[in-house]
């Protein structure tokens, strides 16, 4: 049947911004992300006890509940939790950044190639992707941690090694859809080089979906990283890390609840920010297939 509603107004940058700012949760998400990034970058400058971020002991001040001197209380050796949470945030964000910087371009290029060239390229790449997807990221990280020493580097390696698959899949499906459209054919007929077609014609159309995915991914990578260090496979003490803090603090539940609950809340906070931001971007760009 014929559509009875008039067409929605055309999109452009201003319209997008308008739609984004109208969405309260999206704005909240963006603010949270901004806040976390700022805190992470300025960590040494703004935290009350920056020296507590590493190894430091003050046994007289162990297990102090939250107070004005120690906003988040102190942990089992007397270090200020608030400082350590901020530094832990820094580590989490750095982890997300590194993983995505590696995984996204790698995955996107693979997806482009698979979607554009088809044939054997497509089959090989997509089957590889299927295999990689069959391994739960956590399990992969476990395996890596098992054979190499547990460390931040190895954790990042493990996660990146699997993360690109999501982006390959995403870019692949978009490329396939776009590939058959006319402007690609036009570019081909006009003799544009393959590189040009891939990067200047197809890729820009993927940007909105990518932006949404990257934003959502940042949250998930942080969660996985936290789970890894919770299990003892990520960053090793005494470096401040949210996951290890929760694990260490879990022993003292429910009495010294602040030692594990507050870092956990911080993880939730930053993941929430990225999630809301990603959702907001998704609504703004009106992208459908991104999870």
């Amino acid at each position: 049947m014929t559509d009875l509603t008039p067409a929605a107004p055309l999109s452009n940058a201003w319209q997008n911004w308008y739609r984004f700012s109208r969405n309260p949760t999206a704005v909240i998400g963006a603010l949270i992300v901004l806040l976390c990034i700022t805190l992470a970058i300025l960590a040494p400058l703004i935290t009350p006890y920056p020296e507590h971020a590493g190894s430091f002991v003050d046994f007289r001040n162990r297990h102090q509940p939250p107070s004005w001197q120690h906003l988040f209380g102190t942990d089992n050796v007397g270090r200020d939790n608030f400082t350590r949470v901020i530094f832990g945030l820094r580590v989490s964000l750095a982890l997300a950044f590194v993983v995505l910087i590696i995984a996204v371009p790698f995955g996107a290029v693979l997806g482009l190639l698979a979607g554009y060239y088809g044939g054997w390229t497509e089959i090989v790449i997509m089957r590889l992707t299927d295999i990689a997807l069959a391994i739960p990221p956590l399990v992969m990280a476990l395996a890596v941690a098992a054979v190499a020493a547990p460390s931040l580097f190895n954790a990042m390696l493990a996660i990146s090694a699997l993360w690109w698959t999501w982006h390959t899949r995403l870019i692949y499906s978009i490329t396939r859809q776009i590939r058959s459209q006319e402007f690609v054919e036009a570019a081909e007929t006009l003799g544009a080089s393959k590189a040009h077609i891939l990067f200047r014609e197809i890729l820009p159309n993927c940007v909105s979906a990518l932006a949404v995915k990257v934003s959502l991914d940042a949250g998930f990578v942080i969660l996985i990283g936290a789970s890894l260090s919770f299990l003892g496979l990520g960053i090793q003490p005494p470096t401040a890390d949210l996951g290890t803090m929760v694990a260490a603090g879990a022993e003292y539940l429910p009495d010294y609840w602040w030692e594990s609950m507050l870092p956990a809340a911080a993880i939730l906070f930053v993941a929430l920010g990225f999630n809301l931001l990603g959702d907001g971007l998704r609504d703004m760009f009106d992208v459908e297939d991104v999870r």
Partner: protein
Amino acid sequence: MSLLSVENLSISFTTYGRTTEVLHGVSLAIPAGAQMALVGESGSGKSVTMKAIMGLLPMPPARITAGRILFDGTDLLTMRERDRLALRGTAMSMVFQDPMSSLNPVWTVGDQLSTILKYADRRLARDRDRKGRWARVLEVLAQVRMREPERVAGSFPIMLSGGMRQRVLIAMALLSQPRLLIADEPGTALDVTTQAQILKLLKDLVTDQKLALLMITHNLGVVRETAAYTYVMHKGRIVEQGETAALFDAPQQQYTRDLIAAVPRLTGRA
């Protein structure tokens, strides 16, 4: 008296804060057993009219600003919802446009037909058990000239050809012995030969069962074959109406003339 009579219907739509009048004082009358057509290009308002008659307009964005729709003398617009529902799909039935998308892909044809019949019976307080319903389903499938009604009833829509699916849609409309059949662009999703078959089927059925038919279309060729009387719509208004043959031979309005002239001709015949 007409079976269906639309009197001075005006409808407005409100979206994104803007209100637009889409129908301006549309009037048409369909006597029982008559075969009529409502013609117009896309955006002329013919779909809105059709939906208004069937009661399928989403009422928040749409609003009836004036007019009445009388079926058998009663105004549909002021009727109780329950009574209106009792008419829909029973006395007043619709043949949908796109056979591919109008059939539920995950249920068999027979299942869909008997479900519709089950709830139609309920609305009409007619007592019929499952066997009786199934018999009626097969009967109707035979009416639309399916060679193997049993097999079709047990098939999923994806297993049938386009022409067969369209015939299923017609069968759907005929289940409860309606008195008015509204056909929405019948056969436009099909190739020309199949479309011709469908139209012939439609015409035969309507004549045999003495149904009133309102055909909504933008295809003038179709109109000449099947409708005795035609209404021409443009920008939400009826701009011309009359007996089909007369209308085609001597159109009064410029728009009608343009519409007729726009039909590509293979021969010199009018």
